């Protein structure tokens, strides 16, 4: 009855706690041809708004979920199929999908993610896992971020892998004290999480964004045997140039009015800066100890009284030689650290320039970042 040439488009799972998503706009219509990576629909959850990209190409034959409708995660929202698939087969698939949408999800709280804790030099480092078996991947966020920076990627990467996202010291739910705020201290925290998730010392794939990229490189330089591959997204420390106004503005902003225009610089598409995103950042900044942590880390990122980067990540990468394969991902419209810095690191580095993305390509173009990370992982094994 069902035709296996019918490809369902499903509600993505953005973040460990997401259970429902709402279509706010269909960008494609029935009859449209789409290619992998094309924008399909705008989707909103209680936490975030984002755009769903096509995972595969084909003809949109049926749009199932209506605008404004809540759909359970992994529920089918549209069907792709070649023109010769019969309407009868499509209608049967639509009927099944509608039943799933109408059943909704039971509110049993089972979607609460399991958060675990590692200890590094007296600091509590929190991390969350997606996936049960397979290679371990550890995601390291940037300055002022937390494990939710990987909202769109952690679950999708976890097919056949264990994907961990941590909160660096001073961030998220980890201890807020960052001591001297050095990259070494942050690397210690990452190594403590590595010991917890791979007690046997097996190597893992590290993915770091911005400051987290510099930290990932420092971990690899210190202990190359623990790192199978290194993927750096818009990493700190490749060159001197950086948007110091953004960094100082983020550290100093006290109100929503001050914070919103600062955060907007992170994205190429400023519509992604929702009220919820700004509120969540403000709630984080108001936790006791965060102000001091952000100021200490500012001293790590920037040369005092100058608008230049202080971190040097290139030396760490040069020292790795070919012991660890390195991939660099950058958004072409990055307004924090210019994408041209991708070329400042020498050697056999794989580079992906993501067209039209800002400093947060993992949020603006998650499907492309996912395939780049998966390529880096595949290459290393």
């Amino acid at each position, binding site marked *: 009855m069902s035709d296996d040439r019918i490809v369902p488009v499903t509600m993505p799972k953005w973040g460990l706690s997401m259970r429902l998503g709402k279509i706010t706009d269909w960008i494609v219509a029935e009859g449209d041809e789409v290619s992998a990576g094309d924008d399909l629909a705008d989707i909103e959850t209680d936490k975030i708004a984002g755009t769903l990209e096509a995972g595969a190409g084909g003809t949109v034959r049926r749009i199932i979920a209506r605008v404004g409708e809540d759909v359970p995660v992994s529920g089918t929202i549209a069907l792709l199929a070649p023109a010769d698939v019969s309407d009868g087969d499509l209608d049967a698939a639509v009927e099944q999908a509608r039943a799933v949408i109408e059943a909704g999800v039971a509110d049993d709280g089972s979607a609460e993610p399991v*958060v675990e804790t590692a200890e590094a030099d007296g600091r509590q480092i*929190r991390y969350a896992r997606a996936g049960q078996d397979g290679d371990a991947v550890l995601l390291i966020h940037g300055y002022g971020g937390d494990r939710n920076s990987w909202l769109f990627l952690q679950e999708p990467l976890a097919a056949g892998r264990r994907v961990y996202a941590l909160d660096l010291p001073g961030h998220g*739910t980890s201890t*807020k004290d960052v001591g001297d705020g050095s990259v070494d201290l942050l690397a210690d925290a990452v190594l403590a999480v590595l010991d917890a998730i791979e007690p046997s010392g097996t190597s893992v794939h590290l993915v770091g964004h911005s400051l987290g990229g510099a930290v990932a490189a420092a971990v690899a330089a210190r202990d190359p045997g623990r790192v199978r591959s290194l993927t750096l997204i818009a990493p700190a420390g490749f060159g001197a140039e950086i948007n110091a106004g953004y960094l100082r503005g983020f550290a100093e902003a*006290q*109100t*929503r*009015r001050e914070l919103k225009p600062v955060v907007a610089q992170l994205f190429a598409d400023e519509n992604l800066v929702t*009220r919820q995103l700004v509120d969540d950042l403000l*709630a984080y900044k*108001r*936790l*006791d*100890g965060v102000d001091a942590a952000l100021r200490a880390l500012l001293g790590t990122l920037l040369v005092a009284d100058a608008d230049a980067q202080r971190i040097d990540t290139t030396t760490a990468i040069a020292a790795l030689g070919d012991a660890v394969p390195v991939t660099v991902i950058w958004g072409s419209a990055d307004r924090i650290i210019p994408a041209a810095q991708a070329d400042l690191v020498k050697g056999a580095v794989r580079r992906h320039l993501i067209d039209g993305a800002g400093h947060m390509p993992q949020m603006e173009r998650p499907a492309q970042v996912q395939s780049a990370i998966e390529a880096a992982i595949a290459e290393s094994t």
Partner: protein
Amino acid sequence: MARNITYREALNEALTQEMERDESVIVMGEDNAGGEGAPGEHDAWGGVLGVTKGLYHKFPGRVLDTPISESAFIGAAIGAATAGMRPVAELMFVDFMGVCFDQIYNQAAKFRYMFGGKAVTPVVIRTMYGAGLRAAAQHSQCLYPLFTHIPGLKVVLPATPYDAKGLMIQAIRDNDPVLFFEHKALYDLSGPVPEESYALPFGEANVVREGGDVTIVAMGRMVHTSLEAAEQLAAGGVQCEVVDLRTTSPLDEDTVLESVEGTGRLVVVDEANPRCSMATDISALVARKAFGSLQAPIEMVTAPHTPVPFSGALEDLYIPDAQRVVNAVKTVAEYAR
């Protein structure tokens, strides 16, 4: 990490964390520890609705039961604040403030001013307000407009557990006298609250719902009434922006004005009696400073100008409900010159 706790638990956690952080923080009030006839160590009451429960044993000597003599213990708390302590005094129901009003408005509120800025009075006066508990005319009032009127006092009305904790921590750390209003009907309200300590600044209203058609300004319990109305109205195509003032003194004028500049229409929802209230205050603010943006006369939804009735049927009619807010929003949305 944030987990769901009640408004009551959020307040208790704020008190606990501040008492741990700062030895000068003390708690005092009627039945804050043992209650009548108990020596204290039973920790039987924890305040009349249990907000301070458990603190007596955690902080020996720092949770004080007081006699039923508000004029004495509110005065003692204010005096202790001028001498370096950070007391959190519980004036059980705000209706009782009449007997200790001089200590609050003529003493605490004036010290910083009269001593040329050299004196600080870091006292928090916690108090319950609001109707809905069948507690009649002397235990149900919303007297926050009286305190908002007086320069030198800060007035706080949290609507959610998250705000209750962050505003209480700010109140304790603040160097001025703070009147902290807790609505009796909100104590069991549950919501996400970080385990860690955080302070929410005063004078920052919260836009709890975005919408482009009508601005609703509310505070305390009325924030929830307004949100309920906004959901009903959205089904009919009217999108309301709901602004929770959070503090009435200091007042975040900018957020109110910016919202009305966007919508052109205003409904103020205030559980207090209508004369000289937050409803009239916000209406006057908008009429003066955003007159050019208004596309309809301002509507106010308030209690009537009467005492709170004891009759349950009448009390239910007395408290502004979602239907009255819906009607007021429709009036301003459908207004045509």
